[in-house]
């Protein structure tokens, strides 16, 4: 009977309770969409970074990490790569010859990182080949092909087949350079990466630098969540020859973003739930005070303070549950829709490139977030009932009975 009484009491003032429920539903829609969007954003940034830039693991000469110089090459690079390729669960390994230099066209010049790669190995590790928007992906034939980003091409006024000159220091410390012919344009989600990288055949580059070694090994795993396990196996192969780093160490900002996203989401939800809690306290206070005489009557006929408290808590919890469940259902529906259709950014997409984001994001909210929010709301609803219940319980019975309302 207490349950029934509580439920009916909640809907005594339909308008008031309805407004509270509506506030919860719309609030939850906003907060959950925001949380889902933030998660989509960080996940997308991470995915893109891993896909196009860092892969899962990288190996370098420790000196290279301090100063990216030509001499800081990685001993036994190709042999290690072969061995790592043999580990099951490794999807691809690419060995790069890397040097910083200048890219010059007839129109302009810019500083770039020149990546000397083996086309086939690179495609097993990064999505560079899929990001090709025009031309060919470093063909095996032809003299000195070079792949530049669409963005650089625009700035340097290049077309497929245009001639560019790369300048860099060779292993003797002398300025060296060569003419390359643009074979293709790539376009990754990150504008910064696009502007700073060009790709040539490793053999071509090694020929000009005079160093028949490589600097960087990048590894892609079949299971991106198993990085830690594989890292140890890769380290066993590498030994003292180099340093193995995972994507988080290569791009610590991204790792930090992922690490703090959970906390920042919890804070957003926490602030929102607290605000709702005050709303519920307010509603429960009004509802309880206008029933002072009714509670007095109940206590006069033998209802204990504990039962009165239970009644008020139940009412608050019921109100909170209806709002939370409806709100979370509406939110999950909205996340399901936007998560499938995607949120397109249209004109803003260009700006998002600076963060390495795709133009369409797919909001995603974990079950744990839904349940956590629900749990927080339930606890808050219970807490929000305590103060109003106390207000009613501390009145003197004879005075409460004499009150007119």
């Amino acid at each position, binding site marked *: *009977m207490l349950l*029934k*009484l509580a439920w*009916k*009491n909640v809907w*005594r003032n339909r308008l008031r309770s309805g407004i509270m429920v509506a506030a919860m539903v719309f609030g939850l829609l906003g907060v959950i969409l925001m949380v889902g969007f933030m998660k989509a954003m960080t996940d997308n940034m991470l995915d893109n970074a891993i896909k196009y830039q860092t892969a899962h693991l990288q190996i370098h000469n420790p000196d290279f990490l301090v100063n990216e110089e030509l001499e800081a090459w990685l001993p036994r690079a190709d042999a290690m790569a072969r061995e790592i390729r043999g580990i099951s669960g490794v999807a691809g390994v690419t060995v790069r010859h890397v040097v910083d230099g200048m890219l010059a066209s007839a129109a302009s010049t810019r500083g770039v990182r020149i990546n000397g790669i083996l086309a086939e190995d690179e495609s097993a590790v990064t999505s560079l080949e899929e990001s090709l928007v025009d031309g060919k992906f470093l063909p095996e034939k032809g003299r000195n092909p070079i792949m530049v980003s669409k963005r650089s091409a625009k700035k340097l006024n290049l077309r497929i087949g245009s001639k560019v000159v790369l300048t860099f220091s060779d292993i003797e410390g002398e300025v060296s350079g060569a003419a390359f012919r643009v074979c293709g344009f790539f376009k990754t989600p990150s504008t910064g990466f696009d502007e700073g990288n060009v790709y040539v055949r490793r053999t071509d580059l090694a020929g000009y630098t005079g160093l028949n070694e490589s600097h960087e090994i990048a590894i892609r795993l079949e299971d991106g969540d198993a990085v830690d396990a594989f890292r140890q196996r890769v380290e066993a192969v590498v030994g003292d020859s180099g340093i193995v780093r995972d994507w988080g160490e290569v791009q610590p900002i991204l790792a930090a973003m992922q690490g703090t996203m959970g906390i920042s989401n919890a804070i957003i939800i926490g602030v929102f739930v607290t605000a709702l809690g005050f709303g519920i306290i307010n509603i429960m206070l009004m509802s309880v005070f206008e029933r002072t*005489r*009714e509670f007095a*009557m*109940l*206590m*006069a*006929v*033998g*209802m*204990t*303070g504990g*039962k009165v408290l239970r009644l008020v808590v139940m009412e608050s919890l019921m109100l909170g549950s209806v709002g939370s469940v409806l709100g979370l259902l509406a939110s999950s529906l909205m996340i399901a829709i936007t998560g499938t259709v995607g949120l397109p950014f249209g004109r803003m997409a260009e700006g998002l490139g600076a963060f390495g984001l795709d133009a369409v994001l797919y909001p995603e909210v974990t079950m744990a977030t839904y349940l956590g929010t629900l749990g927080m709301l339930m606890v808050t609803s219970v807490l929000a009932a305590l103060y109003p219940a106390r207000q009613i319980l501390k009145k*003197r*019975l*004879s005075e409460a*009975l*004499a009150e007119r309302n």
Partner: protein
Amino acid sequence: MSIQIENLTKIYNPDTDFPVTAVNHVDLQVEQDEFVAVMGPSGSGKTTLLNMMGGIDRPCEGTVIIDGTDITQLTDKELIGFRRDSIGFIFQDFSLLPVLTALENVEFVMQLQGKSRTECEARAVELLNDVGLGDRLSNVPGKLSGGQQQRVAVARALAPKPKFVLADEPTANLDAQTTYGLLDIMQQLNEKEGTTFIFSTHDPRVIERARRVIVFEDGKVAEDRVARAQKPEDRTL
């Protein structure tokens, strides 16, 4: 059943410059089956007296002994149980739960006693039949007239089989016709259930139906007389 009141005193605001002695050294005895009206002018202390008899308020002095138990010595928790099991309350403004039906309003107080569902329902139906609302069991108070609501309240007061019923101005909000109807029902139940009724009133119509009238003035019993209760047939409208 007996209620024995000795030296009962209630002073409001005792430590201020304007203490109000609402009940002033009252001695009183009420026996089983009595149908007692406490009458007196406004502010004479009727409500205060009834509250102390019902364990709703505590006296400053004196004792209220009910069947040998001095209820002024009970703890708050014991008092709640005492009120629940031993006293039926009827209020001037009916004080039903608006969201529950007539039947549920009566059942609810029995459920507080921890009685079984079937027992509660059987007794509630019986009592609502007794007060003439057998066909209104599932009406909520808002769908009942004032007199009907007060009859539900009478059924509710009797439901826990209390030792006595305290009614503070039960007919103040009712018209003459309804008042007599209600008094008839209270008298019948007084006889049928053997439950003592004590009610306060200003209303001469009620007094003429009481078998004992206690006149209260300035917190004291000014007069305590046994009236010749009229039978329902003799009443004058």
